Every structure is written in C-alpha cells, then in structure tokens.
C-alpha cells in the first residue's frame, strides 16, 4: 500500500527534476578579459599632464595593506584598527579587476589572525562566501538582546587588533569582537557586500537636473514605480554612492570606508570608532588608541605633488579615473543577448535600471566630459519591500529603500543583492518582489515570460 502511494510522488518528483532542467539558468561569471580596472582613455594618454602619475600612485595606495603602525614588512599603510573588517581596499574591490567587488576567495578569513591577531572568524564569514560587513539594526546588550526602542545601524567591525604584534598594549582585556552569534540568535544582524567602483567618476559627474528629469519622466508609469533621492544633509544635493546612495562624493565614500572598514581615521572621519556599548561606558579604551589622530592626512612635507594628498583623497582619485565596464557578448549567444536587451526594456527593468545618462563638462579630464554613462541605474532609492529590508536608515533612505544597483559589470560579479545572499541572477531578480516593493509589477512581467525569454534576459545581464 505504501509503495503504491509513493509512486505518484516519485513521478511528480521526476517531473520537477525534468522541469528544473528546462528552467532558466545563470551561466555564471562570464569569461574573457575583465573589461574593467583600467584608467579612462584620456587618463591613459596622460591628459592633462601628470594625471596618469596620480592614477598610478592612487592605484598603488588602493592595494596597500595596512598595519597598526605601518612598520611591518609589506604592510606599510598606517592606522589599521583598533577595529577593522579587512586590511586593504583591494580586499573588497578586486573582482574581476582592481576596483571591482568581492573575490571568490574571501580574504577576511586570513585577516582574522594576520600578524598575530586572535580573532574568531564570525559564522557568516567563509572562504567562498564573499566579503561582508555586519550591522546591528538595534542596540543590544552583552547577550545580544536588542532594545527595540534604540535603533543602531552602525557597522560592527569583525575584528580587533588585539594580539597583533604591532598592537602594543591593546589586548583582549581592553577590546573585544561584537557578539555576532548573539545578534544572529536575536535576528539583530544584517549584512552588506562591497559595491564595485568602476566608472565612479562618470557617476559623480552626472548633473542632478538630469537625474531629476529622468525621475519625472516616469510619472504615471504602468508599473507602480516611484523612487526618490537620497540627499546630502549638508547642501541638499543628490547623493549617489553606496548601497543606499548615502555618500555624496567619492572623497566622502573613501573617507568613510577607510575609517569604518579599516579603522584608519582621516581628515573626513577624524575619530576612531567606539562601539555603541563602549560609547555608553568609558569610550574606546585608551590602550587601543595607538596612533596620533588623524592617522591619514595631507602630507604637507611631501616633496612631490603626487605624494601630497592623503590616502582618502587618492582612493577617490583612483575610483574617479577608472573606466567603466564594457559589455562583451559571447558570440554563441548574440541572438539571445539581443533579444534579452529588448526584454529588459519591455519588462520594465529600465524604469529603474536606466541604461544611460550623460555627464556634464569636467575640469579633471576629457573622458569625464559629455560622456555616456551606461550604468543601468537611476541613482534613486526605491522601496524594495520586506524581503530585502535591512532596517538601516542612512540619510533619507529608509529600512527598505536601496539605490538602484548599477548593472554595468554585473556579468562578472559573483555575489548579488546588498547582502550577497545569492550568486544566482534569476533568484536575485525574483527577490525584487515582496510586500511593499516598487518592483512587484515588474517581477510579475518577468514571471509572465517564457523560460527561453527569461534565459535571454539572464544572458543579456551576464553580457554587461
């Protein structure tokens, strides 16, 4: 009797497996040359004079590994910690080339114990899981119990310098890692992965008026999409960098990352960061304030122009002068990719992932002037619903509002969505739909496509 009953189940299971074989698949990271990581054309031709020297020096600094005092061999960057997520800009921004995003192998595993550090690798960091930073939406006690009346949202760095050979008297008696397992047990932890920074100078040089014009152009659309902008709290102009478009400029972006991700205080973010618990108590332990502040600053005694700017300014320079990723089509898939491009527009993806803007005149280098910016983003923040909400407020961006992720270079990215929860593009697409999301109708359109059409759309995205 039992056998007879299970036969239909087996048949149904086989049917599902067969159907699965026909479902659209993500072909994965496309091969070929990276098509990214190089300087803009006029930078490569050193116009104006000296700009290539700035790019090259900035690139070197971007790859530099930091240590606490900058005195360890091969680790000449100064100011690591006392808390950090990794030890170099390149740790987070290297796929498929320098300036990109998370590599397949996560350097944060090695960072935990580098140079004698005694950190425990948190449960969410694995060798193959992609670089991550963690935030606690709410202030929590030592056991991890969140206080739901006290929003937090700050980055909780993974590691401390305790135990490192260059940490001096900053030992585990004075500083400790956050209680990540407690946060997990209370669902009080969310993650972010690095954003790629290719083509950032082009994004920086799009005029606010053009962004507003695009926003206004979709009013009354048949998809229920609205969107708004995150704005600088200082001057009210549109901010555009980071997962929630929380950073106004590349200098701000790099200054924040230098302090938050690597623990290097600088001229934009001038203090070492205590945790909220430390701030409520006696503050960051004096034993862990190893260097004079700020650790990165303008080098007023430098003898060359290129050596004078701070690291934060030069990181911004590197990002600004990187050319954008270039679409590459697999010759065997060209008809599919061409059809996928049409479907991208017909489904309505382009209502947010706007294929192209144009920059205004630039006084930095000609490649940034009146240039097409094929970033596939409107740089607006949109409600993405409860399924993606992280309950972090940043500027005007609320709990479920995220900047439309630029899709240029998506063909060579490994991890998707703000927290890197998937490496599967079809899953990333359908994750756009949930309660309160602006993308629900677009995903309904996507779901109405045939399997072949969905595959064409995926192939198109992987060509970008």
């Amino acid at each position, binding site marked *: 009797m039992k056998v007879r009953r299970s036969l239909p189940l087996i048949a149904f299971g086989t049917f599902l497996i067969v159907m699965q074989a026909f479902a659209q698949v993500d072909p994965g990271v496309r091969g070929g040359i990276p098509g990214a990581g190089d300087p803009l054309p006029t930078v490569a031709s050193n116009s104006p004079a000296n700009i290539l020297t700035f790019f090259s020096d900035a690139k070197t600094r971007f790859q530099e590994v930091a240590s606490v005092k900058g005195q360890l061999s091969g680790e000449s960057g100064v100011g690591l910690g006392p808390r950090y997520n990794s030890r170099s800009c390149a740790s987070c921004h290297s796929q498929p080339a320098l300036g990109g995003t998370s590599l397949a192998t996560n350097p944060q595993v090695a960072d935990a114990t580098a140079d004698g550090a005694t950190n425990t690798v948190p449960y969410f960091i694995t060798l193959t899981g992609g670089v991550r930073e963690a935030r606690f*939406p709410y202030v929590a006690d030592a056991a991890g*119990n*969140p*206080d*739901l009346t006290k*929003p937090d*949202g700050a980055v909780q760095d993974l590691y401390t310098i305790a135990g490192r050979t260059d940490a001096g008297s900053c030992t585990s008696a004075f500083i400790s890692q956050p209680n990540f397992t407690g946060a997990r*047990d*209370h*669902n009080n932890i969310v993650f972010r992965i690095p954003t790629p920074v290719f083509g950032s100078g082009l994004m920086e040089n799009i005029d606010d008026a053009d962004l507003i014009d695009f*926003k*206004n*152009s*979709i*009013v*009354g*659309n*048949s*998809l*229920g999409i*609205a*969107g*708004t902008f995150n*704005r600088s*709290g200082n001057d*009210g102009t549109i901010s555009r960098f980071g997962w929630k478009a929380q950073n106004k400029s590349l200098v701000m972006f790099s200054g924040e990352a230098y302090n938050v991700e690597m623990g290097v205080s600088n001229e934009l973010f001038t203090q070492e960061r205590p945790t909220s618990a430390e701030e409520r108590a006696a503050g960051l332990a004096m034993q862990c304030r190893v260097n004079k502040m700020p650790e990165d600053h303008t080098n007023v005694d430098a003898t060359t122009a290129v050596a004078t700017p701070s690291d934060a300014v030069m990181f911004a320079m590197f990002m600004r002068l990187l050319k954008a990723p270039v679409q590459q089509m697999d010759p065997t898939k060209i008809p599919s990719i061409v*059809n996928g491009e*049409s*479907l991208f*527009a*017909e*489904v309505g993806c382009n209502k947010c992932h706007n294929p192209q803007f144009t920059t205004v005149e630039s006084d930095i280098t000609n490649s940034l002037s009146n240039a097409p910016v094929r970033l596939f983003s409107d740089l607006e923040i949109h*409600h993405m*619903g*409860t*399924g993606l*909400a992280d*309950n*972090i*407020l940043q*500027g*005007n*961006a*609320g*709990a*479920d*509002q995220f900047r439309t992720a630029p899709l240029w270079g998506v063909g060579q990215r490994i991890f998707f969505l703000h927290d890197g929860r998937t490496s599967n593009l079809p899953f990333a697409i359908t994750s756009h*739909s*949930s*309660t*309160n*999301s*602006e993308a*629900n*109708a677009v995903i*309904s*359109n996507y779901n*109405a*496509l045939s399997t072949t*059409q969905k595959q064409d759309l995926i192939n198109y995205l992987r060509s970008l």
Partner: protein
Amino acid sequence: MPLLLMLWFSVVVPKNTIMIKGAAPGVSDPATPVPEDGRVAERRYRNDYFGLSYPIPAGWSEQPAGPPPSDGGSYVLAQFATSRAYVLVTAQDLFFTPRPVANAKELLAAVRSRLDAHFEIESEPREVTIAGRTFHRFAYKAPHSGLHWHVLTTDARCHALTFTFAGTDLAALDAAEAGLQALSLHRDAPRCVSSYDAIVKKSDPTFTTQHFNTIPVRVIIGKDGRVKHIHLLSAFPEQSAAIIDALKTWRFAPNEDEIETGLVFGR
C-alpha cells in the same frame, strides 16, 4: 539565570518586517479615510477614500502590497493576478505631479507620448464609458515578450485612478477588463482645488533636522476655513509632527464648500 527566565527576557527582531521607518505617511486623525487604506473583503477591493468597490477577477489572487505613497503623489493601491496576467490598481494625486497634469486624460496622454518607440500601439488613448463613468483607455503591447497592457484611467477625487491590466494571457486580460464594468466608484467628497491660496493666517513648521526631502501634504479645509484633516504622503516623523502642529493654526477664507487641496513642504 534560569532558562525560562532567559527566554522570557529574550527579544527577537521580527523577520521580513519593516521596523524602522524613514519617510512615511502620516495623518492628523485616523478616522478620515486616506487613499492608501484600501482592503480586500468578500472578493472585492474596497477603498473608502475613493468610495471604490472593485470585484476581483474570478480565480485571481491578491499580490503583495505595494510601496507607501511616494513624494510625487503616486500610490500603488492593490495588485491581483493569475498565472500570466495581473491588474495593478494605482492612483496619482494630481496635486503633486512633478509636471503639471490637470486630469486623468492628460496623464494618460503623457504616458502615451513617452512610450518607447518599439512598443506597438494596439489602441490609442480614447474615451470609454465603464460602469457609467468616463474612463480613458490606452492599449499597447511589447513585440518580443508578448506582454500586453490595457490601461484604463478615470478622474476620482483629485486623483487619476488607474487600472492597468497586463500580462501575456490576452484572454485573461480581456475578461478581467470586461469585469471592470462591475465596479462602483462614488463618494461625496470635498471640492478639489489644485492651488488654493485663500490663506488668511499661516505659520511655517520648524524642522529640527534638515532632510531636504519633498513633503506632499493633502489637506481638507472646512467651510469655516479651518484645516479639518491633514494627510502627509511622505514625511519623517519629526516633520509630520511639525507640519500637523503648524497647519492646525492655519486659517483660510470661509467657503461654501469643503475644499481638498495639496501643499508641498520641504524641497
């Protein structure tokens, strides 16, 4: 600490829940209906603000709720779907369109004019009568995907109320569109005045934090010139409180009708 006691004190942040709000809608009084407060009951979508009762197509199911009202005055009121077709019910507050639009007909004309050239027009915008009301209908399709859109919009209490039937199952779309004849849409409502400047007394709200955001505010003004109802479509909590406090002190010239109008604070 005993285990039971620990569990008692244990707090878990709810999953898939928006706990910490940014800019969000707000009201001066919860009793007065607002556009976003629709509900499904007895297979009909009902919305007290519009006086709308819409029969959900047979076999179609309610989809996840849409986003909150936008700072440009757009609402996603509801979505219902079958496997390859859906209807999206939206409203655009005509007080807050970024570019001036007087009515539903003009809004649809603007949508038509901006439609990408590679879409194929199936039916140019034209006036139709549905359930005794004037609607404006526009239909188009996409050549590669086979998606069709039938857009029907009508003027309803200071808004363009729009039903968009979309999908690849044309028969399902046609049937659902035909079902629109069974909707009812009626309500005694204040008179809509897009720019009502008969202000006698006003005081500006004071914001303690600068967000540089746009704050659309829909107000109902009583015959005595007092503000009866305030609906903020998108505002941070401290902005909502400051605007409501300020507007309660505003006085307009007395009028023989109740007036519904829009004000924009912030940027």
